[in-house]
């Protein structure tokens, strides 16, 4: 016989809209993170321009463009690079809106926060556009801050393009081919796998809690819960790391991670390299001309 408290009552649940708790918002963010990771392979499999390139070539592209972006001083040329990344996203069958949102909402936002002081008269004196005492916004300050933000967004866009259009496994193979030490590549591979695995654990833990909650709980309770789960995940990740190492030892691991992957470049890849170098040269030339004026 089951205890009386386990009998099903006849009270109907009252449904009323409520604000999402911190724990709920965390669970939703984790769900999104997991689906983003899993969706990445689907995006990287689309028949787009950058998906067809050798991953090593794409990594080389990142480096070339990153160097170019760091040498560019003109805001207009930087905006041109941002436009090029958006065009490449479209040619690679990515949603330009989603791509731009990701770039500006993450890298752009943080760069804006960091560069805001540079827009003030305190750091960059000049003609005042908005008078706020020592924190007045100046015209050269705004230009400087806009250049910093755009530079970060341009770099982040290039990086995001490579990550989105390349399967994680191919990216790791490319790193191996580019002579990045085996242990570094293996650590990256395991880290990504463990992140997915731990995200799923945390997601399930949040869902299990939510399924037994009648109210969203106080903010203090939710903060405590989220912090406690973070500690739990940290402990679990250490245990998992030990188990994975045991699994490696059991299969003869002795410190090296040899691989059989052999990547091959095609004419398309070399055409891309040539186009990339030419574009960077044109951008640097244009930057010199604009700055000289």
């Amino acid at each position, binding site marked *: 016989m089951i205890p009386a408290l386990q009998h099903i009552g006849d009270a109907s649940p009252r449904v009323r809209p409520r604000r999402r708790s911190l724990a709920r918002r965390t669970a939703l963010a984790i769900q999104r993170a997991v689906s983003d990771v899993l969706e990445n392979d689907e995006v990287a499999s689309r028949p787009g321009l950058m998906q067809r390139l050798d991953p090593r070539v794409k990594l080389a592209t990142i480096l070339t463009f990153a160097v170019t972006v760091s040498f560019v001083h003109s805001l207009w040329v930087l905006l041109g690079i941002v436009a090029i990344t958006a065009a490449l996203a479209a040619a690679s069958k990515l949603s330009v809106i989603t791509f731009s949102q990701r770039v500006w909402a993450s890298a752009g936002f943080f760069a804006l926060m960091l560069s805001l002081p540079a827009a003030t008269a305190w750091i960059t004196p000049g003609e005042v556009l908005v008078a706020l005492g020592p924190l007045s916004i100046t015209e050269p300050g705004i230009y400087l801050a806009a250049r910093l933000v755009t530079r970060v967004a341009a770099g982040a866009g290039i990086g995001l393009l490579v990550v989105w259009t390349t399967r994680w496994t191919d990216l790791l193979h490319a790193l191996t081919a580019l002579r990045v030490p085996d242990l570094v590549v293996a650590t990256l591979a395991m880290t990504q796998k463990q992140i997915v695995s731990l995200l799923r654990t945390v997601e399930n833990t949040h869902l299990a809690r939510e399924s037994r909650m009648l109210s969203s709980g106080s903010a203090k309770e939710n903060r405590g819960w989220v912090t406690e789960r973070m500690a739990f995940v940290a402990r679990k990740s250490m245990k998992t790391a030990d188990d994975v190492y045991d699994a490696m030892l059991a299969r003869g*691991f002795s410190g090296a991670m040899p691989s*059989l992957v052999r990547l091959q470049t095609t004419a398309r890849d070399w055409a891309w390299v040539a186009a990339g170098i030419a574009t960077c040269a044109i951008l640097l030339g244009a930057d010199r001309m604009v700055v000289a004026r």
Partner: protein
Amino acid sequence: MSAASEFVLSGVRHEYRAGSAALCGIDLVIETGQHVAIAGANGSGKSTLLKMLAGLVFPSAGTITACGHPLTEDALEDPAFRREFRSRVGFVFQDADVQLFCNTAFDELAFGPLQLGLSETDVRARVATVAEQLRIVPLLDRAPYTLSGGEKKRVAIASVLTMDPSVLLLDEPTNALDPRSQVWLLDVLEEWKAAGKTVVIATHDLSIAAESADRMVVLSEEHTTAADGTPDEVLAQRELLLEVNLIHEHSHRHESGTHGHPHGHGQVHTHV
């Protein structure tokens, strides 16, 4: 103990923390070619015992020998012994997620043979053969975290088989497997038996022990050996199985009325 003994354990004790024993006074001899099921309730020490046989955990007291050689941490520091031992003894972990740490399923299958120093041609040939045997060819290009539970288990087993071990240690192999995959696993175990491989399975699933093993060792909740015999002999000792928490008294109703009998995980019973 005969010349063909694969493992010999004498007075083995293991403590993860001082005063908290995971195994107590285990004496066990496993002969080459035997199929042994180590059964016991959760926390009885099955996984620890299996890890000891795999040279991953070492006794706090007592000794283990593998094929006549002492199996110690120091012995495994010797590259020649380590290579010989790791190529001979394969371990399939309970949690396939732990075992699959490479980029793709292909890399998983190639990892062991590459560690053994085989040539690229040999490694590719082994991967192709085992992938075909376990019907995982379509999975080879996929990242392990995108696989289902059953697929992960197949890849985990395949990743060990490519090393062509003569001893296979499997920790709770039927965990997370659907019924079709469980039947598939039993077929694989039969093939290994026919091939003369030594197999040691840690399980609390009595049906897999009864169907696949020719010897059954039961660990008690006190972490000692409670029984050792053929599956028929051990499974006939219902009082013992109740005591070690492998079966429980279960009552249910038929048209003729309610009755009770011992019932264990994965155990099929008949009514007269």
